[in-house]
């Protein structure tokens, strides 16, 4: 009987377990979970604070998930080191676990900028785990002045989650606009104004020079008083186990399309990895929940002796703030690289489609997002646009713009 070990207990780990079990029902599977929690969905922590979900509904899989999948979970233990030669994992309690195949699904860690005086701030939190959210929940009150460091996805989600619980919320970012990693200025302005309507204020294009207890001194010298500081300056792949074991790593753990690392019988999946973005053919970290699951699932199948290739990764995000939805996918810098952009700006929102080399390579939708998956599929599949009625697609994503044969196959067959 094979012995599989998964380090991590998040989405990628759940995918990996399900992947293994889709091939091998018998093998022993052990999950090493640093958090003492049943697998839950980390992106839901802001929804938790907002009251849109609760601890029970946050579970990513039902309570009997491990039991049904015949999986042992070692809670509150950290994997300290991997010994690829001996095929062993050394745990924080000094014990060892041997494996036939190992999946590293250690996720990411919050990036905490090195700012003078940060250590002197009393109530400071990162915003990644449920423990973070619960800790913030314990501290925040109607009078709290919350300062959020970072206007990215995490920072803004934290702001949305807290806006009814806190007295005031300010968000600062070194970038001049919100969501700099996924939106251009024009789209970002729409999002920002939505937040401002809800009373959230922004300090953009400037950074915190230093903290003095409960005061942030901005680069322009302004002083911002706060009660709670949330550090949402981004995340970094948690690649150190593989890096220390001698595995190839860039910013994240390098994996191939089978989710293999450079080390024998060691796979990696999820936010700790970096892989090929098919929309622009570059290697990058794509710390996104769907990718994590799909990578994990693929890794699991391959670990258990099946065959699964995951080579359709693209960066993509679907996120909403106060009812304003934003979807982005693929390469949004195509125009700068010789591609073209199609833009449509209406009172309902903004649509930007990016085309390069006769293919759709990316898009941004703000507001109107229905059926966006049809665009996403065009990117993932690399469909040449000459084969579709792109003029029609531009206006409205529908299957009619694709050829009749595609429809016959997809609507008349098993997919």
């Amino acid at each position, binding site marked *: 009987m094979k012995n599989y070990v998964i380090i991590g207990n998040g989405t990628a780990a759940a*995918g990996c377990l399900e992947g293994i079990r889709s091939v091998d029902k018998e093998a022993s599977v052990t999950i090493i979970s640093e958090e003492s929690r049943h697998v839950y*969905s980390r*992106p*839901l922590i802001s*929804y938790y604070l907002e009251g*849109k*979900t609760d601890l029970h*509904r*946050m*579970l*990513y*899989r039902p309570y009997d998930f491990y039991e049904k999948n015949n999986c042992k979970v070692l809670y509150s233990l950290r994997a300290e080191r991997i010994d690829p030669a001996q095929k062993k994992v050394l745990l924080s309690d000094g014990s060892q676990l041997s494996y036939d195949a190992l999946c590293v699904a250690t996720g990411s860690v919050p990036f905490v900028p090195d700012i003078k005086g940060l250590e002197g701030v009393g109530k400071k939190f990162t915003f990644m785990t449920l423990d973070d959210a619960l800790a913030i929940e314990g501290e925040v009150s109607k009078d709290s002045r919350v300062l959020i460091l970072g206007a990215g996805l995490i920072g803004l989600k934290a702001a949305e989650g807290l806006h009814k619980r806190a007295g005031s919320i300010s968000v600062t970012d070194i970038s001049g606009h919100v969501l700099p990693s996924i939106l251009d200025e024009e789209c970002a302005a729409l999002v920002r104004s939505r937040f401002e309507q809800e009373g959230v204020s922004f300090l953009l294009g400037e950074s915190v020079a230093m903290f003095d207890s409960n005061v942030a001194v901005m680069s322009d010298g302004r002083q911002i008083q706060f009660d709670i500081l949330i550090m949402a300056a981004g995340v970094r792949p948690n690649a150190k186990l593989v890096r220390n074991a001698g595995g190839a790593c860039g910013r994240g753990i390098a994996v191939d399309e089978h989710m293999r690392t450079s080390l024998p019988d060691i796979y990696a999946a999820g936010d700790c990895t970096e892989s090929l973005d098919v929309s622009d053919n570059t290697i990058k970290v794509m710390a996104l*929940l*769907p990718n994590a*699951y*799909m990578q994990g*699932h693929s890794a699991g199948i391959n670990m258990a002796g099946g065959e699964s290739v995951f080579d359709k990764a693209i960066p*993509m*995000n*679907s*996120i*909403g703030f106060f*009812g304003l*939805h934003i*979807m982005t*996918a693929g390469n949004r810098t195509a125009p700068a690289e010789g591609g073209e952009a199609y833009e449509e700006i209406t009172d309902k929102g903004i649509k930007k489609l990016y085309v390069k080399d006769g293919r759709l390579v990316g898009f941004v939708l703000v507001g109107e*997002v*229905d*059926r*966006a*998956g*049809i665009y*996403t*599929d065009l990117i993932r599949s690399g469909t040449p646009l000459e084969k579709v009625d792109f003029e029609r697609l531009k206006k409205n*994503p*529908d*299957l*009619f713009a694709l050829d*009749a044969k595609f*429809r*016959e196959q*997809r*609507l*008349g*067959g*098993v*997919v």
Partner: protein
Amino acid sequence: MKRVYANEKWCLGCHLCEYYCAYANSGKSDMVKALRGKKIYPRIRVEGDDKITYAVSCRHCSDPLCVKSCITGALHIEDGVVCIDRDRCVGCLTCILVCPYGAVVRGEGGVVQKCELCLKNAVGSPACVLGCPNQALVFEER
């Protein structure tokens, strides 16, 4: 597994499937009561032009991207049927971002909904198929 298949050769573009869908999932015992004077949010949509039309609903993919992408686990598979636990859905719409068919849609109030083959409502088998006047929709094993 039995799925709903559309044949555009026989689709009349009458949109009845949409109304039968909305009715079936309304929980009401009378179509008039369920739909009169209301905007409908069907889980099947007719699209096309003035010549060719066809209905699109969830394909119940054997390897569904929406389930794999769901951040809450609300989308899941029950005996091959892609189902949604609407209580767990937080409306992040990632499923809409990934469904290649545009078959996952926002329902009334913005919560995501999708075809569950009427297995969970009072009809018991796809109402769109039962209501299709020309067998342009069939529910069968392929």
